[in-house]
């Protein structure tokens, strides 16, 4: 990668070569793409894309195991519910840095916002695959159903994705060296950060509110009238965990893209570890309150109870203690392990609520088809490839020196 891509505006004739081909000529660039991992990614994306086309051509019934009794499956449980919750790092870090003045976390704000933006875009693609008639989506804008949790989710996701796009445009304009529009966007960034907190708070909790109308379908250990609070608190924990996981990976992979002083990633992650410990500790007790409120202690002794305890103790309480231990004794490895466990635990929670423990007492329980898995894997791969493409070109890991002084 040529350093001129970051440090100076390239001459007009070389723009494509510098900005898109990373300073190489086309044959060299194409040869550089021929790696085993790229080949695997291409196969996964091609398979997922083909099956997505097949789903729209042949219908939901042909491509999935969804039915009238189980209308929500892997695409909602994983792509939508898990994709959205794991993208919570954008508003968590954005608000910490720009609203609460924790400027030491600024170096990880841009990767967090990019992850969030890609997460939301792919969640929306997954949602489109799941909707019976996705072309009718515009109805949420012309016929508002203000008493519906689903309307709140749809509206807020739509608006928050727009906010994330605008936040992501800051490094895009730096990359393009568009100073005037960059300055104008910077003036709006504080308002955009406030909006991102408002929309995220609303729709992260509203995703849980969707299940308030299904107390008979969701297993009592996961159903609670407080479920929207559980979803919101766990979203904050997931956001912190994802920033730690993603920061660990990207700081190693994109080290060459960091200009100027490197952030002390260990110190930042130890600070995030403290927040993660406190957040998960609160979340664990809230989940216990859910059991107490429903008087379901006896259900903990069943097979479903063991599964619930695995999630609540193994992937909430244990990572909370690991975060705390790591933060107290300055052992960042424990914080990273706790973050991975938190990510797994919260994805497991969303899958439990929307797929595994949903319609739990039906004789023929839903199991996703191989095509549903392939589409989801293809979408995740697409997200990873898009992140790499953008981070290799745009000032994501650090600010463009030509725009020094940019607060966002």
């Amino acid at each position, binding site marked *: 990668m040529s350093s001129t891509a970051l440090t100076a505006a390239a001459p007009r004739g070389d723009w494509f070569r510098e900005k898109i081909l990373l300073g190489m000529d086309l044959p060299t660039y194409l040869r550089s793409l021929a790696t085993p991992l790229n080949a695997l990614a291409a196969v996964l994306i091609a398979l997922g894309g083909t099956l997505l086309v097949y789903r729209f051509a042949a219908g939901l019934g042909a491509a999935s195991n969804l039915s009238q009794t189980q209308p929500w499956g892997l695409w909602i449980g994983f792509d939508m519910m898990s994709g959205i919750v794991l993208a919570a790092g954008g508003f968590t870090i954005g608000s910490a840095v720009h609203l609460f003045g924790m400027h030491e976390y600024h170096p990880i704000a841009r990767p967090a916002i990019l992850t969030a933006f890609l997460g939301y875009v792919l969640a929306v693609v997954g949602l489109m695959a799941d909707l019976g008639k996705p072309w009718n989506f515009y109805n949420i804008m012309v016929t508002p159903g203000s008493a519906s949790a689903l309307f709140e989710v749809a509206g807020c996701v739509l608006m928050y994705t727009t906010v994330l796009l605008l936040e992501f445009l800051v490094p895009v304009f730096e990359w393009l060296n568009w100073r005037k529009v960059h300055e104008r966007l910077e003036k709006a960034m504080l308002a955009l950060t406030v909006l991102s907190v408002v929309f995220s708070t609303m729709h992260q909790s509203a995703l849980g509110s969707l299940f308030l109308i299904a107390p008979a379908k969701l297993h009592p250990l996961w159903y609670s009238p407080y479920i929207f609070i559980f979803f919101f608190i766990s979203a904050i924990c997931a956001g912190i965990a994802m920033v730690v996981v993603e920061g660990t990976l990207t700081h190693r992979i994109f080290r060459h893209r960091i200009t100027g002083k490197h952030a002390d990633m260990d110190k930042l992650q130890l600070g995030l570890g*403290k927040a993660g*410990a*406190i957040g998960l*500790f*609160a979340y664990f*007790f809230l989940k*216990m*309150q859910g059991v*107490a*409120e429903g*008087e379901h202690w006896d259900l903990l002794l069943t097979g479903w109870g063991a599964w619930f305890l695995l999630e609540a103790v193994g992937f909430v309480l244990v990572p909370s203690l690991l*975060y*705390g231990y790591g*933060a*107290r*004794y*300055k*052992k960042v490895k424990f914080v990273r392990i706790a973050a991975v466990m938190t990510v797994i635990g919260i994805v497991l929670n969303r899958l439990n609520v929307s797929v595994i423990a949903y319609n739990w007492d039906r004789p023929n329980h839903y199991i996703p088809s191989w095509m549903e898995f392939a589409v989801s894997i293809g979408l995740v791969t697409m997200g990873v490839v898009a992140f790499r493409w953008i981070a290799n070109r745009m000032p994501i890991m650090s600010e463009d020196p030509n725009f020094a002084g940019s607060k966002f």
Partner: protein
Amino acid sequence: MENEFLNVYAAKLVEYGLAIAYMAIFVSFWRWVQGEPAPGRKPDAKPAGRTS
């Protein structure tokens, strides 16, 4: 159910008890997470090696 009226209060008792227990444990947990380990009790202390 024998006496539903009393059961509601039993459930509430557990809820409030859990909340009070949580707050009590949370204070200790917060101090533990925020605090520094005692200088002599750092688990990652390495044995002294050669200095020259």
